[in-house]
């Protein structure tokens, strides 16, 4: 890895600064959980804006081949089927493709609004008898034939309402590995926060706490809150705030560094 895990921060590292700046050591106006929740919110916002972090998770494939997307992740990037304990992409895995309109909430499903049978689009690879792509993959001629039988060799899934529904032929595998964008869950003692986000997290949380305190004493905290708001520069967004700097740094983060970060954070899921 290009960075030491010791450089990662815990929520307490951020708290130690925020509590000092906001004079909330006694948690009289906000709770500790409120501030930690704000850290999570900030990292989520950064993740939505920059996709700076990816994580992968392993799931057991059940009889109905349904998987609920866990909280905190979004934007499914890659899905692989595999058997055994380890997922080695390209060695013991099978690619799984997203199939629009595949709907199987009970395990048995169909493809809605299938365009494969109207003669104009005979290239749906998920239908064995009409797929030119899948037949090519199987060494066939690539000539599509109309049909309605789902492919046995092309694995696919549909997504609806936070549930991933895998095609029947996926049951030949027992596990699924999915790569997501998204944010992990915080733990007080586990260092999971990249150091590059330290400043923006401190500013984000400080601004949030002062926003809550403005209502307690508008005269005292209104000006201080404005200072914190400018320092962060999120709403309204400015080029001088820590938000913009963090966004820039994360966007420009090298691929190797991103991979290392993903690897480190994904290990926390296992």
């Amino acid at each position: 890895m290009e960075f030491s895990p010791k450089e990662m921060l815990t929520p307490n590292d951020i708290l130690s600064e925020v509590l000092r700046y906001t004079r909330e050591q006694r948690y009289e106006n906000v709770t500790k959980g409120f501030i930690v929740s704000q850290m999570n919110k900030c990292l989520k916002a950064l993740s939505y804006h920059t996709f700076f972090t990816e994580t992968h998770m392993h799931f057991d494939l059940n009889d109905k081949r349904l998987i609920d997307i866990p909280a905190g992740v979004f934007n499914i990037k890659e899905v692989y089927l595999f058997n055994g304990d380890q997922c080695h992409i390209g060695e013991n895995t099978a690619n799984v493709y997203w199939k629009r309109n595949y709907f199987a909430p009970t395990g048995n499903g169909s493809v809605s609004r299938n365009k494969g049978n109207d003669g104009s689009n005979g290239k749906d690879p998920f239908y064995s008898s009409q797929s030119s792509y899948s037949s090519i993959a199987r060494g066939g001629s690539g000539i599509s034939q109309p049909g309605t039988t789902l492919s046995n060799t092309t694995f696919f899934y549909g997504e609806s309402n936070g549930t991933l529904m895998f095609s029947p032929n996926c049951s030949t595998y027992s596990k699924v590995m999915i790569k997501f964008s998204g944010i992990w869950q915080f733990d007080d003692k586990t260092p999971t926060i990249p150091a590059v986000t330290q400043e923006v997290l401190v500013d984000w949380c400080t601004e949030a706490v002062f926003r809550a305190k403005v209502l307690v004493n508008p005269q005292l905290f209104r000006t201080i809150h404005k200072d914190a708001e400018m320092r962060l520069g999120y709403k309204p967004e400015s080029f001088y705030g820590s938000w913009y700097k963090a966004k820039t740094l994360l966007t420009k983060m090298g691929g190797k560094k991103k991979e290392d970060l993903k690897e480190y954070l994904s290990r926390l899921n296992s």
Partner: protein
Amino acid sequence: MVSNTILRYVVDDIAKDLKQTFKEKSIQKSQIAYYVMIVANRLKSQHISKISSGAYVHAFTDLPVHIEPIGSNPNNIAGRKRIVLPNAIYDFHKDGGIDYLSYWDREAVSVECIDTPEFTRRTFTRTTPKESERLYYDKYEKPSASNPYYYRQGKYLYLLGLECSDVATLEIGIYSTFDPLTKIDLDAEFEFPEELLLILKRQVLDLGRFSLKMPQDRANDGIDSTLLSGANDQKLVSVNDPINQTQQ
């Protein structure tokens, strides 16, 4: 600075100033002690709320957590974990009379030299029954054994987050009021700010003066009361007098 005197000296001093040291005195020593207590409580509470200091914190350990059994008293909530405040406390804003509340494993091996002291690891956060509803909306704020809360109702502190744990005792630091008069030990240390003794004395003298004056006016003993007692009718006090200066 905590005074290094005892209550007896303060009371005797004031009794002498009020000339109430003879046998048939109008104001008993216990009454002066009572005056001192009520004035001292007021001044001390102002002092504590203004100054961040641990000088007047009383810490208690091994306070038992218990659950009140179901009874006939509707004012006594049963089935919830709580502790009894070990002493009366000043009623500051947001229960500021409680300095801290924590629990820790007394049998754990002490590692204070290299790690966080045990008693600071699990401190409770103050809430109220209504405010606590919101806490359960967020997984990071939700009360739990690692993130416990308390709310005060009278002399009880109810605990949130320890429902599924077997924590038996707590530690608490509080700002205690002076003991009630019936428990006062005149020879015990008088925990009162040294710098406020002057104001205390003057305010008690005012109370004594008032007390000395009133009986003669009100008593119908057939004596011409045209001439008042030796006490002054009126005491003019400047608005800038320290007595009129609130500490907050």
